[in-house]
């Protein structure tokens, strides 16, 4: 096993990786932009090196600098987390060439899966179902006509994309030209490649994904599936495992398709194969993420294993520590993503400062965070601040546990979606597992906050007023007659 690893990431995932590294006796190196000075991942690490560079996200993407730090400090491996350099095949290659282990797949698998079109073709070749689609690159001149021929609604996606960037829904032929134009310009900006493709949109589909892990020899195990349909802006905010209401047969077929794809790619590392499942029970391959997923904790909770530890073992050449028949899910796990945003304003990202942070406690309640009190939430990084994960015997119990945990969580000083997530948990359609990717927009009305009970609002106002020193002086310090004459905010 490695004796020292560098974690090329920030926030909750860097802290989460370091937690496992510490448990395994591996020393950790953090890299950070100066905006993150004092962040938990920096404080947790055995060594921390500040990255040069003004633009915060660019610093975390500075391959040469990160590889240089790794070599200088004698770290044998780099764990990239998710986002940033985690799916950058060129980086994986450079790391390997520098004699450092990249905790991830080989560059070939990343290259294959990193391109939506290539990965889709590969899936189709290996018998994994894919949705009808046409590629702009195949015949750019007739792209619009070929797209129309699939039929509406269509989804326009960036070939090199992910995370909803450069993705547009088109319901009518009249909107197609504009959608292709904007999708292409977003794709160009985010991925440096403006090529897009059009795909049949599966309406009211469910986002189901399968966690796999492979040792690089073609041996791939599935670690059950996750349900990730609760999304806004094409990004998940609630995930659970196992997926509710899947028949054994469907479950078996989806897992088998995932294993088939990853085995064919001789995949090494933890990975996730995403599918869209239609109301007609047909499912199609969406993409494979060749990294640790944000929502990996729900899988860990139902299986009682540590995916980061497994990643380290596979990367160190120790192989997999379990067999498929050892994988026995138990109970139900739910994760919610705590984001700095305003759900009532179309989920607009928010900034501020974490003034107060109080965490819920209790059995099977896990908080994966990368923020500390006093830390600024800036527009430089993603708006996700932390994840709250619970596990219980049944789905209903897990929902109840999550409601309680959310109520006990206080993160004040920046607007967050905590109350909104609590309303999702309390929604009858969520309790009944009537979920698909349109859930949040379909139930937008009933997910709005109801008016607070008058007494509660009064108590909150009194508490707020008493948090002000001016008001306290008036309420407690000044003798009665003066208070009556005082001219405080009239």
């Amino acid at each position, binding site marked *: 096993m490695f004796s020292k690893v560098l974690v090329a990431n920030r926030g909750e995932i860097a802290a989460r990786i370091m937690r496992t590294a510490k448990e395994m006796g591996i020393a950790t190196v953090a890299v950070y932009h100066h905006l993150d000075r004092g962040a938990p991942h920096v404080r947790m690490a055995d060594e921390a090196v500040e990255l040069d560079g003004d633009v915060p996200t660019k610093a975390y993407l500075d391959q040469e600098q990160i590889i240089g730090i790794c070599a200088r400090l004698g770290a044998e491996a780099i764990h990239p987390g998710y986002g940033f350099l985690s799916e950058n095949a060129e980086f994986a290659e450079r790391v390997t060439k520098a004699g450092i282990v990249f905790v991830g797949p080989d560059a070939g698998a990343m290259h294959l899966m990193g391109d939506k079109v290539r990965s889709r073709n590969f899936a189709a070749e290996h018998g994994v179902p894919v949705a009808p689609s046409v590629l702009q690159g195949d015949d750019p001149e007739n792209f619009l006509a070929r797209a129309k021929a699939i039929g509406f609604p269509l989804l326009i996606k960036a070939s090199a994309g992910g995370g909803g960037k450069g993705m547009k829904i088109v319901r009518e032929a009249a909107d197609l030209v504009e959608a292709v134009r904007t999708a292409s310009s977003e794709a160009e900006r985010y991925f440096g490649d403006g090529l897009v493709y059009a795909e049949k949109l599966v309406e009211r589909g469910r986002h189901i994904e399968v966690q796999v892990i492979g040792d690089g020899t073609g041996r791939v195990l599935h670690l059950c599936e996750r349900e990730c349909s609760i999304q806004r802006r094409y990004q998940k905010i609630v995930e659970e495992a196992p997926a509710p209401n899947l028949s054994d047969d469907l479950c078996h077929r989806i897992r088998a398709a995932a294993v088939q794809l990853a085995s064919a790619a001789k995949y090494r590392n933890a990975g996730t194969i995403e599918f869209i499942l239609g109301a007609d029970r047909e499912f199609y391959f969406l993409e494979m993420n060749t990294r640790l997923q944000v929502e990996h904790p729900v899988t860990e909770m139902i299986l009682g294993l540590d995916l980061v530890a497994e990643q380290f073992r596979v990367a160190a050449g120790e192989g997999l520590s379990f067999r498929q028949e050892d994988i026995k899910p138990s109970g139900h796990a739910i994760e919610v993503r705590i984001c700095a945003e305003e759900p009532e304003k179309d989920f607009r990202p928010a900034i501020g400062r974490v003034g*107060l942070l109080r965490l819920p406690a209790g059995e099977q309640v896990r908080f994966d965070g990368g923020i500390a009190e006093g830390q600024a939430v800036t527009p430089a990084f993603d708006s996700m601040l932390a994840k709250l994960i619970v596990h219980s015997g049944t789905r209903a119990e897990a929902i109840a546990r999550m409601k309680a945990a959310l109520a006990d969580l206080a993160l004040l000083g920046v607007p967050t979606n*905590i109350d909104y997530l609590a309303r999702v948990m309390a929604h009858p359609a969520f309790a009944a597992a009537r979920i698909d990717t349109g859930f949040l927009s379909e139930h937008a009305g009933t997910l709005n906050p109801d008016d607070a009970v008058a007494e509660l609002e009064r108590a909150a106002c009194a508490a707020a007023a008493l948090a002000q020193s001016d008001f306290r002086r008036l309420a407690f310090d000044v003798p009665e007659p003066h208070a009556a004459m005082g001219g405080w*905010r009239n």
Partner: protein
Amino acid sequence: MTTQLKLDGRTIRLDIAGRKPALRLVFDSVEHEVIELPAEDGAFELKLDGRVYRGWRYAGEREIYVRLDGRTFVMSLAEAGGASETKGRHANAVRSEMPGTVIGIHCARGDEVRAGDTLITIESMKLQIGVAAPRDGVIEDIHVAANATFERDALLVSFAALAELADADLMEKRA
């Protein structure tokens, strides 16, 4: 003797009616007794009309956050005196709510726009966000350039003032 708190766009008036033997606050012309109990750092505990409320609070630079019974209340102290900047349908200035970068400009000086029209597209926190016109009107000026970065509260777009428009209308009619 009034303090005003803004909550969800509403202004809540709060008066101190008396302080002995216990603090009495007036909400909507009804008196309520408030007793503050000791609480750990960041938490509060108060007895309001005999009922105990426990929660957390944090007073930031602009807002006061109160977390109570699984609910977050974000309040600001209402401006004393007259209205601050005119907002909503009388607004002349469109300001940024957060720092970001200009990705696209979809209007030009002199354009007539409708409320809700996207004026510019900005990028902030890795997201593209459209900045919408707060009201119908005529664009007086655009104060940012494509690819420019700006801070929170920066002036992005200004509208010709409504009064001037009315004057202009009158002039046209007279002419």
